[in-house]
């Protein structure tokens, strides 16, 4: 970094400004939120058709289907979060601001986390109605897993969305890169959700939540460190 450049604003200020901008754009159109909600609802519905009318089976696997619906929707949400920047060369504008590139990562990843958490909150009642599940342990646990899971999808997802948004065949590339990566997150989130919905006699919830927390620490850290290299030009 050259010394003659004006001193950039702080990381936190830049992050919040960018996050506010993203949320404002989102609020004005609500296109992305609407799209992912209906996409996720359709996915939840499709699982029940794919499985047939066996309600016991649906109830047993609800945690997994819930997270698959969020995962599929996250691909749309993540891709879209960088598509808005490619219009009118917005990304170049942000980079010239001069905003710290890491602020772009944090704001995008937080924005996606918020979006996915909101989606999850809306999906829970639908899952309860469609699959006949009930929350056995506590709503707080479910909320915690929802938040941790959304964070875990968003951090690596934001890094890969930034890459794939500039590549050819971006719609294929993002899931191809993201799916194998988030397997540990998906696995622990689905397992923990199942424990919340079906009872947790062995107290395994904490270990799965811990694994998810560790996954988050690693990928928020790695994303924070490596993201500037991705969007440099």
């Amino acid at each position, binding site marked *: 970094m050259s010394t003659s450049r004006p001193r950039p604003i702080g990381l936190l200020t830049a992050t919040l400004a960018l996050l506010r901008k993203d949320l404002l754009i989102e609020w004005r159109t609500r296109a992305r939120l609407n799209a992912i909600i209906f996409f996720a609802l359709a996915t939840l519905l499709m699982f029940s058709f794919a499985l047939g009318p066996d309600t016991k089976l649906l109830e047993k696997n609800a945690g997994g289907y819930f997270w698959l619906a969020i995962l599929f929707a996250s691909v749309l949400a993540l891709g879209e979060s960088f598509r808005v920047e490619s219009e009118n060369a917005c990304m170049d504008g942000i980079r010239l601001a001069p905003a710290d590139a890491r602020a772009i990562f944090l704001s995008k990843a937080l924005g996606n986390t918020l979006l996915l958490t909101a989606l999850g909150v809306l999906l829970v009642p639908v899952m309860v109605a469609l699959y006949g599940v009930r929350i056995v342990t506590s709503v707080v646990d479910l909320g915690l897993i929802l938040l941790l899971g959304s964070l875990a999808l968003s951090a690596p997802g934001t890094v890969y969305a930034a890459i794939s948004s500039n590549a050819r065949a971006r719609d294929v590339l993002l899931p191809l*890169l993201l799916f194998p*990566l988030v397997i*540990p997150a998906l*696995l622990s989130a689905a397992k923990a959700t199942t424990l919340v919905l079906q009872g947790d006699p062995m107290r395994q919830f904490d270990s799965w939540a811990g694994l998810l927390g560790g996954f988050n620490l690693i990928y928020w850290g790695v994303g924070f460190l490596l993201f500037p290299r*991705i969007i440099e030009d």
Partner: protein
Amino acid sequence: MGKFIKWGLPALALVVLAAGWWLGLAWAPPDREMGDVQRIMYVHVPLQWVAMVAMAINFVVAISYLMKASWKLDAAAEASAEIGLVLGTAGMITGAIWGRPTWGVYWSWDPRLTSQAIMLVTYTGYLVLRRFVEDPEKRATWSSVVAIIGAINLPIVWFSVRWWRSLHQVQSTPKTVDPEMTLALRVSAFGMLFLTIWFLMLRYRQALAERQAEVALPDALPSDLAAAGGANSTRVA
């Protein structure tokens, strides 16, 4: 150097590999429980080892590229990922062939198998990314990032899958097998290693030549590629 890579190394690899496989198939005793089926070990285990070596090279090269960009490192990254994927896939297929008579199934959701499957998908994604980005400089940087993240993920995958479901026997190393099998395994492994080094060298030279052609003659690329790749591809030397 050139002559050794072209003729000497493959000749050495084939002789050592032939010796290792002869030792494994004819000389070493059959396994007490598995019988002759176990002899696939002299192919399977060396394949898995060298696949790991290739992936480890890929990881180190990816980190090095982010620290100091060079086309040589990028070419080495492409070569090691591709060779690692081929060897790992061959390792997995030979493992499945072994698994069927031994465990009764080709595939189980054992942590090691599952982690390797995820590893192969990860590096497939990595190679697809390389094909889909035309600007050589961006391709190199982005694929390094993806390689690092993918490699970091593998221990996490292994750990999480072990918790999730826990049939693979303890890996065979010279310490866990009969001394007569050890020799056959060691010789086969060295043969496979020489073969891998030869593959890596050839693929590296090819990848480096491709990079140099891309940088020197962006106009020679197909038209839609040149627009994306020609603009700022000359910065890395």
